[in-house]
Each structure stands twice: as C-alpha cells, then as structure tokens.
C-alpha cells in the first residue's frame, strides 16, 4: 500500500476544488488496490491452486475456488467496504474522528439478537440465511430505531444526545448479552463467543447476495450526498447557512451508516477497527473531502478486510484465527498512534 500512498496527488498551488481528474487520481488507486487484493487472495491458502485445475470442470481446485474461497472473499470485500463507509459516516455525523460503526450500539444490538437465537437453539439455515443472522439483524434494527427515537425526542437530532443514547444502549445490551451467555450451556456459550469475535467463515453466496443490494444502495446514496457530508463535517451551523437541510441530512446519514453496519454484521459478527483504520488512513493521504472518502473507503475497506481474512485463514492453517483478532491486532497499535499524535498534525 505504501506505493499507492505516495502516488496520491498533493495539493498544488493554484489548483483547488475537485475535478474529475483529481477524483480519479485519488479514488483510482483505491480501486486498483481493491482489484489486486481480490485477484490475489483466492490464490492464497493451504492448498495451492493450479490454473489448469481451476479451469477444468469438476476438479477439486475449481471447487475450492468457487465454493469455498470466492464466496468468502466476495463477502469479506463487502463487509470491509460497508464498515469503512459506515465509519466515515459516523465520524462526519458525530464530528468525532474516533467514532466507529459500533459507537452507537449496533454491535451490542446485533450480538444480543445472535445470542438469543443461539440460546433458543435456532442454529438452522432458513432460505439460505442462518436464523442467527436474522435475529442479529433484528437486534441491530431495534438498536438503530431506539437510539434514533431517544435522541430525536429532544427536537432535531442533537449529536450529543445521539452519542449518549448509543453509548447507553451499548451498555444495556452488553449486559443482556452477558446474561444470555451466563444462562447458556457450554456448547452455546462457545458459539456465542465465536460469533462475537467476528469472522467471515460463511457458507455459500447467499450472505453476499442478500447484503450486496443494501450495501451498494447505501453507498451510492452517500456518494451522491458526499458534498453535503463535507458541510456537516465542518459544522451544523456551517452547513445550515450554506443551504443544507441539516436535520434531513443527519437522519439519512445516520440510517445509511446504521443499515450498512447492521446488514453486514448480521452475517459476520462485529469486526472491529476496519471502520476506524481505513477512513483515517485515507484521510491522511487524500485529505478530508468526503467526495473522495466515501467511495475510496469502500474499496480500501474491502481490500483491507480481505487481506486480514487471508491472513486469518492461512497464518495458523489448518486452524483459523477469527478475523476480528487480526483487524484488532493491526488496528490497536494504530489507534494508540492516533491518540498519541501531536496536536496540529494533519489528521
């Protein structure tokens, strides 16, 4: 990624504003990294694949690629992209560069749903969707709506109330998750733990095909609104006096970011740090313009998570490390770096 970073255009004197050329110069490298990772990742694994094997129908090589690795990689790309974009949205909405997709409680909400499903013994797949994911998504939606209506009751959608409502629900749902954990048997408990670590160990294409329309729609909406996200990120009065409908913009961003997070988390469990590391890295090299951050984070986030997941499934092969452990191990030190940065530094 280092090579791509140096190829980003720096601001030159007398050149400002976002032109199509500058947009491509900034988002293009993200797309290239994404494409490269998606091409290479399927070839990496404990069994080497040969081109001849992959091309011949019915071969083991082809089955491994098409039925095991590709669904997982495509899903990983989608989860990473969705979480990174959600991170960008929550950071802009809360004007807090430390906000993540899970700051407002969605991870606890979907964990609660998943934990209840496991506790009820609903470890079944219905129409290609695991019941656990259905419950997890319901838990996420419940959280999203609760936080929204608690925050909205005081008129508008005040950032501080939003944060407070989210953090509070996070604690409440976290406690309920602990309760169900405590009330379940050893097998269930271990399943719950695995789910909450976050992993991309899915079966088949259906998790991907169910989430891809939601994610692409939400990302497209937010790319269209990205000029207005710049206004919100600069300040609410700033946005309002420049003609933005602040309340509507905040509401739309909140729901888009939440749905992005909830939809992918329902299948993958909460995977941390993608939503923090990716937007920050991109902001460091390409600046805080959301017209670049939203699409760029989608591609970089996808690439980052697929890379982490490739490491997760190969490092201790044949055992798998939960991908959340890898992202946290990379993300943790990054987070500390962020906290220790000198005031006035670019990001």
């Amino acid at each position, binding site marked *: 990624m280092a090579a791509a970073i140096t190829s980003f255009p720096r*601001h*030159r*004197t*007398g050149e*400002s*504003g*976002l*032109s*199509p050329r500058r*947009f491509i110069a900034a988002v293009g490298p993200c797309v290239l990294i994404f494409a490269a990772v998606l091409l290479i990742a399927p070839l990496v694994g404990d069994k080497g694949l040969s081109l001849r094997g992959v091309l011949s129908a019915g071969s083991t090589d082809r089955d491994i690629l098409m039925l095991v690795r590709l669904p997982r990689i495509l899903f990983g790309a989608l989860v990473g992209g969705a979480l990174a974009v959600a991170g960008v949205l929550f950071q802009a909405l809360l*004007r*807090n*560069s430390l906000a993540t997709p899970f700051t407002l409680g969605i991870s606890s909400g979907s964990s609660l749903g998943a934990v209840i499903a496991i506790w009820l013994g609903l470890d079944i797949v219905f129409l290609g969707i695991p019941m656990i994911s259905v419950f997890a998504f319901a838990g996420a939606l419940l959280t999203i709506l609760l936080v929204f209506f608690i925050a909205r009751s005081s008129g508008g959608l005040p950032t501080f109330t939003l944060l407070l409502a989210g953090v509070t629900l996070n604690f409440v749902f976290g406690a309920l998750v602990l309760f169900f954990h405590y009330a379940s048997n050893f097998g269930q408990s271990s399943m719950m733990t695995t789910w909450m670590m976050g992993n991309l160990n899915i079966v088949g294409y259906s998790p991907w095909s169910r989430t891809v329309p939601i994610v692409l729609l939400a990302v497209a909406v937010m*790319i*269209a609104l*990205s*000029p*207005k996200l*710049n*206004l919100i*990120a*600069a*300040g609410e*009065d*700033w946005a*309002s*006096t*420049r*003609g*933005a*409908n602040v309340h509507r913009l905040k509401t739309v961003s909140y729901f888009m970011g939440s749905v992005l997070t909830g939809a992918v988390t329902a299948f993958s469990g909460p995977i941390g740090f993608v939503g923090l590391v990716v937007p920050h890295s991109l*902001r460091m090299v390409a*600046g*805080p*313009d959301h*017209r670049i951050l939203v699409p760029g984070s989608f591609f970089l986030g996808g690439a980052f998570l697929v890379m982490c997941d490739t490491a997760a499934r190969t490092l201790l092969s044949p055992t798998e490390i939960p991908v959340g452990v890898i992202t946290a191990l990379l993300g943790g030190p990054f987070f500390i770096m962020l906290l220790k940065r000198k005031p*006035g530094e*670019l*990001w």
Partner: protein
Amino acid sequence: MVNRQPVYNPTMTGAPVYRIEDLRFGYSHTPVLKGISAAIGLGDFVALVGPNGAGKSTFLKILAGLIRRYTGSVEFHGVPLGKIHSRDLARRVAFVPQETHMVFPFTASQLVLMGRAPHQAAGLFDTSVDLEHADEAMRLTDTLELANKPFTQLSGGERQRVVLASALAQDPQVLLLDEPTVYLDLKHQIHFYDIVERLNVEKQMTIVSVTHDVNLAARYARRMMAVRDGAFVADGNPESVMTPEHLYEIFEVDVAVLKRPDGRGNYIIPTS
C-alpha cells in the same frame, strides 16, 4: 431610562432587505427578544451593539435562518423568512460566526469552495464558475496564499478571513457577522473590518455586524442599533447613539466621548 425618548433616526440606505415586526424569541421560557421591530435596508452597514446576553447574537441568528421558532414576523424582501428554502436564503445571505472550530483538516480552499454549495447542482465536482468565485473571494480577503493550508493550522486572524472568504463565495447580498473579531488582536480586527467596509462600499453589500466594541462599530458602521434586554433602545447614526446618556443606558457604564481627529466619528472611554 423609560421616560427618555429613544433615538430613532434610522439611516437606512436603500429599500428594505429585512423587515422585522414584533419579533419575540425565548429559550425554554426565558425570553431573549421581547418584541423587536426594525427594518434593514439594502447597502446598510449596521452595527448591533449591546451588553452580553442582550439578544444581539440571537437576533442575528434569526436573520441568518439558524433559529426558526420565533414569533412575530421577519420578512426578507417581502417574503416571510420561514417560507424561504434554506438553500435560496444561502444564495443571498451569508453568516460569519465568532469562531469556527474544525475537527477535520479541511484546507482553506476546500472551506471556501463549500460556500458554493447553495449554487451547486447535484453532482460531485466543482465547476470553473465555482473556482472563479472562490478565487475572487480569497483575493478579496487576502487569503490566496493560505489556499492549501489546513484550517486547523491557521492563526485566529487567518481563520476569520478564510471563513469570510467562504461566506463571500456564496455571492451574498447580505453579510451577517456575529462578533467576528472578538478573538482577534487590534491589527487583525482592523484588517478584517477594512475588508468588510470595502465590500459595503464597493459592492453595496448589506452588512449587519454584532459587536461589543463600540469604538470599532463607530469607526466602520454607518448605522448603530443598540440592544438591551431583548429590545432596541437606540437606532441611528453612530454619533447620535454614542452619547454618554445612551451608553450609560446600554452598558451601565459612565463614559467620556472624544471626537476623532480625522472626523470619522467619536471615541468613547469608560470613566466609571
């Protein structure tokens, strides 16, 4: 204080831009504005003076469309403010707050270009027209050389000029300033208001500026409106408002009034 007839010789320059009738506003049962009526004309340079908590900034925010839950009527070019879409208002009215705090490291030119937002159609890119307006705004505010610097690294004076440039990129008819120089040193206060004065004189931009600083107000404004306790107590040219009697009524401070040697209004010096 109640017996004395207030000054009322509003030195309105042109046709009214704002017409305000019995404007009232309060924060949860604490009244802030207690029935204000006034008219602000095209090309006016108004200084709103008064003590802390008098309601000056609240009044300005209502004019800017930032506060919409008032009672009474505020008309902009004859249309009730509540019926004007915020985007349409932002094409005519720009607002500069006391201080602007940025979390993200937007560059000066990115912030100035955000002033183009009310004029931009749907789409991601800045057009050459946007760039021309931004360039002109930065030239007027002497901020061209700051274009590529992150706002977070600028000094207070530079920041205010960049925010002013962003407001000017809106191509406004009216410029609302909320104590824009309160955190600036003397040199930067004068630099800022010199720019504002040029906009008023050369571009007939209507200026409404809230300030505590009566001397600064008197030096630049051609009309002074004094607010105390949610109501106007004086409205007229700076000389007629800046008498020891009025200033005592407004600020509860005894002052001496001195003529400026260059004839540009008066100085006041607190004596109590």
